[in-house]
Protein backbone atom coordinates (compact mmCIF):
# COMPACT_ATOMS: atom_id res chain seq x y z
CA UNK A 1 0.00 0.00 0.00
CA UNK A 2 1.62 3.21 -1.16
CA UNK A 3 1.03 5.89 1.47
CA UNK A 4 3.25 8.68 0.19
CA UNK A 5 1.31 11.10 -1.95
CA UNK A 6 2.92 12.64 -5.01
CA UNK A 7 1.65 14.55 -7.98
CA UNK A 8 2.88 15.76 -11.31
CA UNK A 9 1.13 18.18 -13.61
CA UNK A 10 1.34 19.18 -17.22
CA UNK A 11 -0.45 21.56 -19.53
CA UNK A 12 -1.84 20.36 -22.86
CA UNK A 13 -2.70 23.69 -24.48
CA UNK A 14 -5.25 25.12 -22.03
CA UNK A 15 -5.96 21.82 -20.24
CA UNK A 16 -4.29 21.06 -16.91
CA UNK A 17 -3.58 17.38 -16.24
CA UNK A 18 -2.82 16.45 -12.64
CA UNK A 19 -1.45 12.93 -12.17
CA UNK A 20 -1.48 11.60 -8.62
CA UNK A 21 0.13 8.63 -6.94
CA UNK A 22 -0.41 7.35 -3.41
CA UNK A 23 -3.08 7.95 -0.81
CA UNK A 24 -5.42 10.89 -1.46
CA UNK A 25 -6.03 11.88 2.17
CA UNK A 26 -6.43 15.42 3.53
CA UNK A 27 -2.82 16.31 2.68
CA UNK A 28 -3.05 14.76 -0.79
CA UNK A 29 -6.34 16.52 -1.47
CA UNK A 30 -4.87 19.81 -0.33
CA UNK A 31 -1.84 19.41 -2.60
CA UNK A 32 -4.12 18.74 -5.59
CA UNK A 33 -6.15 21.85 -4.72
CA UNK A 34 -2.97 23.97 -4.41
CA UNK A 35 -1.69 22.76 -7.77
CA UNK A 36 -5.07 23.52 -9.32
CA UNK A 37 -5.14 27.01 -7.75
CA UNK A 38 -1.74 27.89 -9.23
CA UNK A 39 -3.09 27.32 -12.74
CA UNK A 40 -6.67 28.50 -12.11
CA UNK A 41 -5.31 31.91 -11.08
CA UNK A 42 -3.71 32.09 -14.52
CA UNK A 43 -7.00 31.34 -16.26
CA UNK A 44 -6.95 27.55 -16.68
CA UNK A 45 -10.53 26.25 -16.56
CA UNK A 46 -10.21 22.76 -18.03
CA UNK A 47 -8.79 20.17 -15.68
CA UNK A 48 -8.13 16.44 -15.75
CA UNK A 49 -7.33 14.57 -12.54
CA UNK A 50 -5.71 11.22 -13.32
CA UNK A 51 -6.05 8.88 -10.32
CA UNK A 52 -4.46 5.86 -12.02
CA UNK A 53 -1.80 5.46 -9.33
CA UNK A 54 -4.00 6.34 -6.36
CA UNK A 55 -5.66 3.18 -5.14
CA UNK A 56 -6.92 4.56 -1.83
CA UNK A 57 -8.71 7.85 -1.31
CA UNK A 58 -10.77 9.13 1.59
CA UNK A 59 -13.72 11.49 1.77
CA UNK A 60 -11.63 14.28 3.34
CA UNK A 61 -9.31 14.18 0.34
CA UNK A 62 -12.32 14.22 -1.97
CA UNK A 63 -13.73 17.27 -0.18
CA UNK A 64 -10.78 19.26 -1.61
CA UNK A 65 -11.77 18.07 -5.08
CA UNK A 66 -15.31 19.35 -4.46
CA UNK A 67 -13.70 22.74 -3.85
CA UNK A 68 -12.08 22.52 -7.27
CA UNK A 69 -15.45 21.68 -8.87
CA UNK A 70 -16.97 24.65 -7.02
CA UNK A 71 -14.39 27.06 -8.42
CA UNK A 72 -14.65 25.65 -11.95
CA UNK A 73 -18.47 25.85 -11.88
CA UNK A 74 -18.27 29.55 -11.12
CA UNK A 75 -16.11 30.12 -14.20
CA UNK A 76 -17.85 27.70 -16.60
CA UNK A 77 -14.91 25.35 -16.35
CA UNK A 78 -14.87 21.57 -16.26
CA UNK A 79 -13.15 18.79 -14.34
CA UNK A 80 -12.77 15.25 -15.68
CA UNK A 81 -11.56 12.29 -13.60
CA UNK A 82 -9.68 9.50 -15.35
CA UNK A 83 -8.37 5.99 -14.65
CA UNK A 84 -10.68 5.44 -11.71
CA UNK A 85 -10.56 2.17 -9.83
CA UNK A 86 -14.09 0.76 -9.59
CA UNK A 87 -14.41 1.32 -5.82
CA UNK A 88 -13.27 4.94 -6.15
CA UNK A 89 -15.68 5.47 -9.04
CA UNK A 90 -18.47 4.07 -6.88
CA UNK A 91 -17.47 6.39 -4.03
CA UNK A 92 -17.53 9.48 -6.27
CA UNK A 93 -20.87 8.37 -7.72
CA UNK A 94 -22.41 8.04 -4.23
CA UNK A 95 -21.12 11.51 -3.37
CA UNK A 96 -22.78 12.86 -6.52
CA UNK A 97 -19.59 14.26 -8.07
CA UNK A 98 -20.44 13.07 -11.57
CA UNK A 99 -23.41 15.43 -11.61
CA UNK A 100 -20.81 18.20 -11.82
CA UNK A 101 -17.66 16.53 -13.16
CA UNK A 102 -16.92 14.10 -15.97
CA UNK A 103 -15.18 10.74 -16.02
CA UNK A 104 -13.20 9.10 -18.78
CA UNK A 105 -11.22 5.89 -19.02
CA UNK A 106 -7.92 7.55 -19.90
CA UNK A 107 -6.22 10.94 -20.02
CA UNK A 108 -6.19 10.73 -23.83
CA UNK A 109 -9.94 10.22 -24.02
CA UNK A 110 -10.46 13.09 -21.56
CA UNK A 111 -8.24 15.35 -23.68
CA UNK A 112 -10.35 14.46 -26.71
CA UNK A 113 -13.49 15.64 -24.93
CA UNK A 114 -11.68 18.96 -24.52
CA UNK A 115 -10.88 18.87 -28.28
CA UNK A 116 -7.17 18.35 -27.69
CA UNK A 117 -5.56 16.05 -30.25
CA UNK A 118 -3.25 13.40 -28.80
CA UNK A 119 -0.64 10.95 -30.01
Amino acid at each position, binding site marked *: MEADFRLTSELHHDVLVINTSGYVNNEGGEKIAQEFDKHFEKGVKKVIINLEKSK*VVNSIGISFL*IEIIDKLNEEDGKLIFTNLES*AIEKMLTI*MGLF*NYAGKEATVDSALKTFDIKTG
Partner: protein
Amino acid sequence: MDENIKLKMMLPKIPDIELVAIEGMDRMARHMGISEEKISEAHVLVTEAVINAFEHSGQKNPLVQVEFTMTQEKLTIFVRDFGKGFKPEDIEKPDINKKLGSSHKRGWGLKLMESMSDDFKVDSNEKGTKITIIKNLQ
Protein backbone atom coordinates in the same frame (compact mmCIF):
# COMPACT_ATOMS: atom_id res chain seq x y z
CA MET B 1 -14.63 -23.78 2.94
CA ASP B 2 -16.05 -22.44 6.20
CA GLU B 3 -12.78 -21.01 7.44
CA ASN B 4 -13.22 -17.95 9.61
CA ILE B 5 -10.23 -15.71 10.29
CA LYS B 6 -10.02 -12.75 12.64
CA LEU B 7 -7.71 -9.81 13.12
CA LYS B 8 -7.89 -7.38 16.03
CA MET B 9 -5.86 -4.22 16.49
CA MET B 10 -5.80 -1.07 18.58
CA LEU B 11 -4.79 1.98 16.55
CA PRO B 12 -3.20 5.14 17.99
CA LYS B 13 -3.87 8.46 16.31
CA ILE B 14 -0.91 8.89 13.99
CA PRO B 15 -1.08 10.02 10.36
CA ASP B 16 -2.47 7.46 7.90
CA ILE B 17 -2.76 4.73 10.56
CA GLU B 18 -5.91 3.55 8.72
CA LEU B 19 -3.54 2.13 6.08
CA VAL B 20 -2.25 -0.34 8.68
CA ALA B 21 -5.78 -1.68 9.10
CA ILE B 22 -6.15 -1.91 5.31
CA GLU B 23 -2.85 -3.80 4.99
CA GLY B 24 -3.98 -6.33 7.57
CA MET B 25 -7.31 -6.81 5.85
CA ASP B 26 -5.58 -7.21 2.46
CA ARG B 27 -3.46 -10.04 3.80
CA MET B 28 -6.55 -11.80 5.11
CA ALA B 29 -8.29 -11.32 1.76
CA ARG B 30 -5.36 -12.71 -0.22
CA HIS B 31 -5.31 -15.75 2.05
CA MET B 32 -9.03 -16.28 1.45
CA GLY B 33 -8.83 -15.64 -2.32
CA ILE B 34 -11.23 -12.68 -2.24
CA SER B 35 -11.62 -10.63 -5.44
CA GLU B 36 -9.74 -7.33 -5.81
CA GLU B 37 -12.99 -5.50 -6.55
CA LYS B 38 -14.62 -6.49 -3.26
CA ILE B 39 -11.50 -5.68 -1.31
CA SER B 40 -11.18 -2.26 -2.93
CA GLU B 41 -14.71 -1.48 -1.77
CA ALA B 42 -13.80 -2.71 1.71
CA HIS B 43 -10.83 -0.28 1.66
CA VAL B 44 -13.29 2.60 1.46
CA LEU B 45 -15.36 1.21 4.35
CA VAL B 46 -12.35 0.71 6.63
CA THR B 47 -10.79 4.07 5.78
CA GLU B 48 -13.98 5.99 6.42
CA ALA B 49 -14.79 4.10 9.63
CA VAL B 50 -11.34 4.67 11.13
CA ILE B 51 -10.97 8.36 10.22
CA ASN B 52 -14.54 8.97 11.38
CA ALA B 53 -13.77 7.32 14.73
CA PHE B 54 -10.68 9.48 15.30
CA GLU B 55 -12.37 12.67 14.15
CA HIS B 56 -15.40 12.33 16.35
CA SER B 57 -13.97 10.66 19.42
CA GLY B 58 -13.36 14.05 21.03
CA GLN B 59 -10.39 12.70 22.98
CA LYS B 60 -6.88 14.13 23.29
CA ASN B 61 -5.06 10.83 22.69
CA PRO B 62 -7.70 8.59 21.18
CA LEU B 63 -7.38 4.90 20.47
CA VAL B 64 -9.54 3.12 17.94
CA GLN B 65 -10.24 -0.59 18.12
CA VAL B 66 -10.60 -2.40 14.79
CA GLU B 67 -11.65 -6.01 14.31
CA PHE B 68 -12.05 -7.92 11.07
CA THR B 69 -13.80 -11.25 10.79
CA MET B 70 -13.60 -12.76 7.33
CA THR B 71 -15.08 -15.82 5.67
CA GLN B 72 -15.21 -16.43 1.95
CA GLU B 73 -18.78 -15.16 2.00
CA LYS B 74 -18.52 -12.01 4.08
CA LEU B 75 -16.37 -9.53 5.92
CA THR B 76 -17.43 -8.02 9.24
CA ILE B 77 -15.67 -4.77 10.15
CA PHE B 78 -16.04 -3.61 13.73
CA VAL B 79 -14.66 -0.19 14.65
CA ARG B 80 -14.93 1.26 18.14
CA ASP B 81 -13.83 4.53 19.67
CA PHE B 82 -13.97 5.49 23.33
CA GLY B 83 -15.08 9.07 22.88
CA LYS B 84 -18.15 11.07 23.81
CA GLY B 85 -20.48 9.52 21.23
CA PHE B 86 -23.03 11.16 18.97
CA LYS B 87 -26.63 10.80 17.90
CA PRO B 88 -26.69 9.41 14.35
CA GLU B 89 -30.13 10.96 13.81
CA ASP B 90 -28.60 14.41 14.41
CA ILE B 91 -26.15 14.02 11.54
CA GLU B 92 -27.39 15.75 8.41
CA LYS B 93 -27.18 13.61 5.29
CA PRO B 94 -24.68 15.23 2.92
CA ASP B 95 -25.93 16.47 -0.44
CA ILE B 96 -23.54 17.56 -3.18
CA ASN B 97 -25.96 20.31 -4.26
CA LYS B 98 -25.69 21.84 -0.79
CA LYS B 99 -21.95 21.23 -0.42
CA LEU B 100 -21.20 23.19 -3.58
CA GLY B 101 -21.11 26.83 -2.67
CA SER B 102 -20.80 26.01 1.03
CA SER B 103 -17.62 26.28 3.10
CA HIS B 104 -18.27 22.87 4.75
CA LYS B 105 -17.51 20.19 2.18
CA ARG B 106 -16.83 17.30 4.56
CA GLY B 107 -19.16 14.93 6.41
CA TRP B 108 -19.47 12.06 3.91
CA GLY B 109 -18.23 9.15 6.02
CA LEU B 110 -21.52 7.74 7.31
CA LYS B 111 -23.20 8.02 3.92
CA LEU B 112 -20.34 6.18 2.21
CA MET B 113 -20.27 3.42 4.82
CA GLU B 114 -24.02 2.97 4.59
CA SER B 115 -24.10 3.01 0.80
CA MET B 116 -21.12 0.77 0.09
CA SER B 117 -21.87 -1.91 2.70
CA ASP B 118 -24.46 -4.66 2.81
CA ASP B 119 -25.34 -3.91 6.42
CA PHE B 120 -24.34 -1.03 8.63
CA LYS B 121 -25.04 -0.39 12.30
CA VAL B 122 -24.05 2.45 14.63
CA ASP B 123 -24.29 2.08 18.39
CA SER B 124 -23.24 5.27 20.16
CA ASN B 125 -23.47 6.54 23.71
CA GLU B 126 -21.44 8.71 26.09
CA LYS B 127 -18.85 5.91 26.47
CA GLY B 128 -18.05 5.72 22.79
CA THR B 129 -19.24 4.60 19.40
CA LYS B 130 -19.30 1.13 17.86
CA ILE B 131 -19.73 0.76 14.11
CA THR B 132 -20.41 -2.66 12.63
CA ILE B 133 -20.23 -3.04 8.85
CA ILE B 134 -20.99 -6.17 6.85
CA LYS B 135 -19.62 -6.52 3.33
CA ASN B 136 -20.65 -9.51 1.25
CA LEU B 137 -17.63 -10.88 -0.58
CA GLN B 138 -19.34 -12.99 -3.28
